[in-house]
């Protein structure tokens, strides 16, 4: 079974009397260990869709399976547990915890979300810091490192719990182009190294190039599915 399976999902926001259809019945499947991107203009529904896949929000209609779980069935607590277990998050604004050092930020999910033994915690944290090339900065605080470095730390934090899926909503929007590219390359490398599925959103066409599968969203609908090496709307990999 696909890691993510969406069947005609709809997300409607209600502001007062006004209904806003952010997602208009989209269906797709994302395989394990893939590197997927959602692109589209502002307001097309990228964030909404990623929030749905990330179990931060639930669809108004349709079925959504993530890691074999019907996420519509989960309550608030179960969703928190599910996220902690299966999903890593990378944010546009890095969202590191300012009072914790680089090392402690990466370690955080292993302490506060999972309950991992001290020894294993140290090993995993060091391994990830090494993998993202932040080992030397490990005792610095977030305000002492650059944006690109922050996002590297965030990548390490997202991967430290060994999630099946990492979601990144516009992870490079706050980075200059060169740095953005290195962060995407890092994610790609991590995908290969840890066999983790990465789903990210962007509206930067150059960054998109790095993805293996590209979904284009417009007005809450998928208007294009592009697979690297296959023509537009190609059926298979």
């Amino acid at each position: 079974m696909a890691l993510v399976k969406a069947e005609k999902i709809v997300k409607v926001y209600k502001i007062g009397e006004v209904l806003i259809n952010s997602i208009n019945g989209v269906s797709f499947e994302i395989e394990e260990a893939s590197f997927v991107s959602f692109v589209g203009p502002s307001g097309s529904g990228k964030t909404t869709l990623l929030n749905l896949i990330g179990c931060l929000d639930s669809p108004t209609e349709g079925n959504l399976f993530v890691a074999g779980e019907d996420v519509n069935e989960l309550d608030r607590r179960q969703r928190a547990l599910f996220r902690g277990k299966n999903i890593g998050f990378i944010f546009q604004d890095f969202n590191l915890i300012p009072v914790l050092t680089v090392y402690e930020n990466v370690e955080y999910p292993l302490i506060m979300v999972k309950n991992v033994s001290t020894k294993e915690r140290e090993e995993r944290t060091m391994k990830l810091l090494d993998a993202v090339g932040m080992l030397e900065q490990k005792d610095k605080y977030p305000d002492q490192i650059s944006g690109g470095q922050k996002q590297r730390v965030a990548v390490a934090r997202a991967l430290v719990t060994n999630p099946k899926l990492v979601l990144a909503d516009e992870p490079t929007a706050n980075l200059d182009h060169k740095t953005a590219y290195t962060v995407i390359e890092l994610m790609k490398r991590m995908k290969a190294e840890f066999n983790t599925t990465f789903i990210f959103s962007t509206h930067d066409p150059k960054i998109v190039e790095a993805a293996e599968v590209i979904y284009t969203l417009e007005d809450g609908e998928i208007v294009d599915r592009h697979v690297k090496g296959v023509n537009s709307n190609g059926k298979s990999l």
Partner: protein
Amino acid sequence: MANLFKIAIRNLARYRRRTILTSSLIAIGVIFVLLFVGVSGSFKNMMIGQMTDSMLGHIQVHRKGYMASIDNLPLTMNMKPQAVKKLEKVFQDIPDVESYSPRIKFGGMLSTFTETTNIRLNGVYPEKEMKTLPLLASRISNGGKEIRKGEIIIPELLSRGMKINVGDIVVVIATNKDGSVNGKQLKVSGIIESVTGPGGRDGYVHIEDAMEILRMEEMEISEIAVRLRDFGKLHSVYNTLNTLLSGELNKQGKPAFEVHTWESLSPFYNIARSIDFMTIFIKAMLTAIVLISVMNVMIMAVYERIREIGTIAAIGTMPGKILSMFVTEGVLLGIIGAIAGNIIGTGLVYLLKVVKITFNFGRQSGLVLSPYVTLYDIVMISLIVTIVAVIGSLQPAFKASRMEPIKALRHV
């Protein structure tokens, strides 16, 4: 757990000025409570000490009904020797009783041959009375501090009003319980300072002189004052006495004795009570200070960190963990304030003790205030602060734990 503390301490350090201000406020509250408790406690104890150790004793036992007509000092309500024997046996069996002193209380006339006035007298065994009232001797001024046979100690007011001095001869005249009058010449051996309260203006004679004046064939005792080894056991000894004496019935089948603690004998008990009440009041103020300041800071802390809360909630931190993160922070704030306040407060109380503040109480002047802080006070106050800090941070912490991650993440 250690990590919760680490994060809480770092967050407190992040907003250092606010943390210092808030914990100072809490510390000041704690200092005030300690000072108040220390000073008022010592004042109260001194006051009670003056009452019990120079006049009342800790507990008094009378024949049932005596207290109701104590203003007349009725000789007919005295206790017979057998009754007194029973009581003495009971006192000797209670190890917490340090000493007791039987008294014959009576009213009469005091004459200087030129002038005559009313006087209330206690006939006592000098050693027993002095042992039961350790401060009595200090009230007997400019005179021999003993009460010997053939001598009388007269109240200060009479001495001044009638210009009686130590060494003068006076006559005490009293009506005995059969209605006949008798008198005896006595030498004034001392003047006794007055204290406010019942018996505070009484003179003293030897118990045998009292018997002689009253023409008693057998010794009939009006009251027995009791001193305890440990004042803290007042109520337990009172209860023991009551139980032991409840079996003693008079001819009508009613209890033969009545037992009173100093509390029901002195109007100062109400002052002592109001000091206790004020202590409760000032602790309530501390509670309010801690509650409001911790709550205020934690509401701000939650508000400032909405995006952080969104982040940790998104990556799967359970609501309970988020709640305990913020509660830990609020409690630490309280604990920092409590520790600082306890240290400074205890220091200040000690300082007050060292500088020896004196005050006057009733006719006693130059009493040295010796404020003190007990471990119990410190533990109680710290407990109040901690518990109130938990309560104060619960609401904001709960709010943080209930936040929807997407809403929190979108917050700017």
